[in-house]
């Protein structure tokens, strides 16, 4: 289809270099060969190129999600690498990092390779893999990080739970620094001694609803510990799905001291609060839990002032069978890939919390650095760069319909919500994976 290249016409480019109106020409081998207000296809040898309309749209490097649950292997009834990749492409993502809490756990080269292969086979998105820090994420022995790093793994995490043992986490950080390639240990911060038995944020609503709570401090204690361990070891620590005002402040202080700490926040933690749980609908059950208004405000402030480096979806598909359970029996997690950009536009850019360029920094080039894939993704929209691009209309208003999502599961907490910002085209290596809002494979 793009055998003769692609020309994207009429859009406004926003990247780390700034903002400009220009057409973008892409060669048949997926490289940007021209960025100019009025591209002449013939002059670039692109006669017969596919012309994509970007009028009224923003062109950016493709989005990068450093926190995706693809459920394969083991939970293919909820999501597969293919269905998750399609959801990602529709959401404007050209790269995603699959979390290792699969069955079996991604804690060895064999399982890493299996997921990487499935990503290539799907061919919808650049699927990268995060390996587990500990074997089977059980928090007892270190997983073979070097063999996974040899396959390109640059993030390690026991996501789904945090590494509880302080000494083991110290060792993991020390060990990771000697792999010969820069890697990042990412932490799901949750002290289980404080969170065990909890199903929502502890506070006004948990008290009223009679649901056991998870205090903000369960997260903050581990954020504090990991910052201390980053100082002790000098190794890079990434705080996943940071959700409380206290965590934001801890990361802010750590960064002020120059410690090698980065952090991500999810769309739901800047959009929804624990008041949603009043419906007892487990679609609002997530870990870390939806927090208070004050926490949401703090997360937004952290996104605005650079304390938080990335917006990550924590896309966590679950079948309706397991989600239609009593709240305290239902699993944690909500979909995110297909709504993240629109929520960023609607909740952050529209109200003036951040600029569009900041949003794209948080969703594309900054997470690319954390994931260690910045040589391929989150690149400026410039001649010579790989054409991993998203084209989206920041004014297009649409209503989230769970049945229309590409994910195999439907557990979006935004059903019926009107949001602004819709992906028109997503290009991976110059090939349209999404065109005019439709997945191409």
């Amino acid at each position: 289809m793009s055998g003769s290249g692609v020309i994207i016409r009429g859009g406004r480019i926003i990247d780390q270099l700034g903002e400009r109106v220009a057409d973008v020409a892409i060669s048949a081998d997926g490289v940007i060969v021209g960025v100019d207000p009025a591209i002449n296809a013939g002059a670039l040898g692109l006669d017969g190129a596919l012309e994509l309309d970007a009028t009224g749209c923003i062109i950016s490097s493709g989005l990068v999600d450093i926190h995706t649950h693809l459920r394969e292997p083991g939970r293919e009834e909820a999501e597969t690498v293919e269905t998750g990749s399609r959801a990602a492409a529709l959401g404007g993502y050209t790269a995603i990092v699959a979390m290792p809490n699969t069955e079996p756990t991604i804690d060895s080269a064999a399982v890493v390779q299996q997921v990487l292969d499935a990503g290539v086979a799907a061919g919808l998105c650049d699927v990268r893999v995060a390996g587990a820090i500990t074997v089977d994420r059980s928090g007892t022995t270190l997983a073979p990080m070097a063999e996974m790093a040899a396959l390109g793994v640059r993030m390690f995490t026991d996501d789904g739970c945090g590494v509880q043992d302080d000494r083991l986490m110290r060792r993991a950080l020390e060990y990771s620094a000697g792999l010969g390639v820069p890697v990042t240990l990412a932490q799901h911060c949750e002290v289980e001694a404080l969170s065990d038995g909890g199903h929502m944020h502890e506070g006004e609503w948990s008290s009223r609803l009679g649901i056991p709570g998870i205090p903000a401090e369960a997260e903050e204690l581990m954020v504090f510990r990991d910052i201390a361990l980053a100082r002790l070891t000098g190794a890079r620590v990434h705080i996943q799905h940071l959700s409380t005002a206290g965590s934001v402040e801890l990361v802010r202080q750590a960064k002020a001291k120059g410690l090698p700490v980065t952090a991500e926040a999810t769309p739901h933690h800047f959009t929804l609060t624990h008041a949603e749980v009043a419906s007892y609908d487990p679609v609002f059950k997530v870990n870390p839990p939806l927090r208070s208004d004050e926490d949401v405000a703090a997360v937004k402030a952290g996104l605005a002032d650079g304390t938080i480096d990335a917006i990550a979806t924590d896309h966590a598909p679950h079948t309706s069978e397991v989600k239609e359970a009593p709240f305290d029996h239902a699993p944690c997690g909500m979909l995110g890939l297909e709504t993240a950009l629109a929520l960023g536009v609607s909740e952050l850019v529209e109200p003036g919390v951040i600029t569009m360029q900041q949003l794209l920094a948080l969703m594309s080039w900054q997470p690319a650095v954390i994931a260690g894939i910045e040589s391929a993704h989150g690149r400026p929209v410039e001649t010579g760069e790989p054409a991993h691009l998203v084209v989206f209309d920041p004014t297009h208003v649409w209503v989230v319909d769970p049945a229309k999502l590409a994910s195999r599961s439907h557990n979006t907490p935004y059903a019926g919500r009107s949001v602004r910002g819709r992906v028109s085209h997503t290009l991976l290596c110059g090939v349209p994976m999404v065109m005019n809002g439709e997945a191409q494979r």
Partner: protein
Amino acid sequence: MSRTGSVSSRHGDLRNLLSIADLGPDVATGIGEVMTLTDSFVEVSERANPKVPALRGRTVVSLFFEDSTRTRLSFETAAKRLSADVMNFSVNTSSVKKGESLRDTIETIEAMGVDAIVVRHASAGAPRQIAQWATSAVINAGDGWHEHPTQALLDCYTIRQRLGDLAGRHIAIVGDIKHSRVARSNIAAFTALGAEVTVVAPPTLLPPSLEGWPVKVSHDLDAVLPTVDVCYLLRMQRERMSEALIPSLREYTSLFGLTESRAEKLAQHALIMHPGPMNRGVEIAAQVADHPNAVIIDQVRNGVAVRMAVLFLLLGSGTEWGGELDV
């Protein structure tokens, strides 16, 4: 007896009873209507043949995911006295044990044609979820730590029976507030009727946040007792020790148990209440439980009439049960 007909018509919009707040925008009026109806059913219960045909042809299923012999018996007795057919879905021996989802269970039961589901569940909110899937009326017979609205209604009725109007009364609820559905429903009901509520407990047995709760808090039972019209004791569960919420039952009793000597601090008219089952010797001394002001047996007795009233409100729309009877 025209009043019963008018009660049901005014409550045509009450489809489920999941929480005290469901009793309407004006909860006090809603509770008042249940009380009025309960008066009639108390009278029915005192007859030689305590049965009326009000819900003849209607089917009530009791769906208890958590054991509770007393509440189940109370609801089933209430339904039978209204001539409803009663089905008993026994969770322990059913498909639920085989992994059937809550939704499938509800859809299966509904397919058999039922008019009301009385549900007890260990999970807060389960009755609300069930109500979303069910077309029949759902009555919450206790969900986790959340609510137990018919318990609150029977408690209101029992207090009113002995002391009259609740407005201006001071009620202490003593014990494990944090884990208590009875406390949450009673606080909502008592305060809606104008009573003042003080919760008395060690801090570990209070909810993490009391923001928005219309209650006073005390950790000193001795100081509160002389000021109350009702001392409502909650059951103290032994597993709270293993959760490090209290050091020992002995220490709990020494601080928060209604011992004989402590009961002497109560006013002459003050009632002693307990939702049952009691731990005699823990939250309530054996002798205190048998005190003339202890209305614990009245609570159980009134429970049947209150549940008749609730079932009638939800299912009896349009029926003038009283008019058909020779009363």
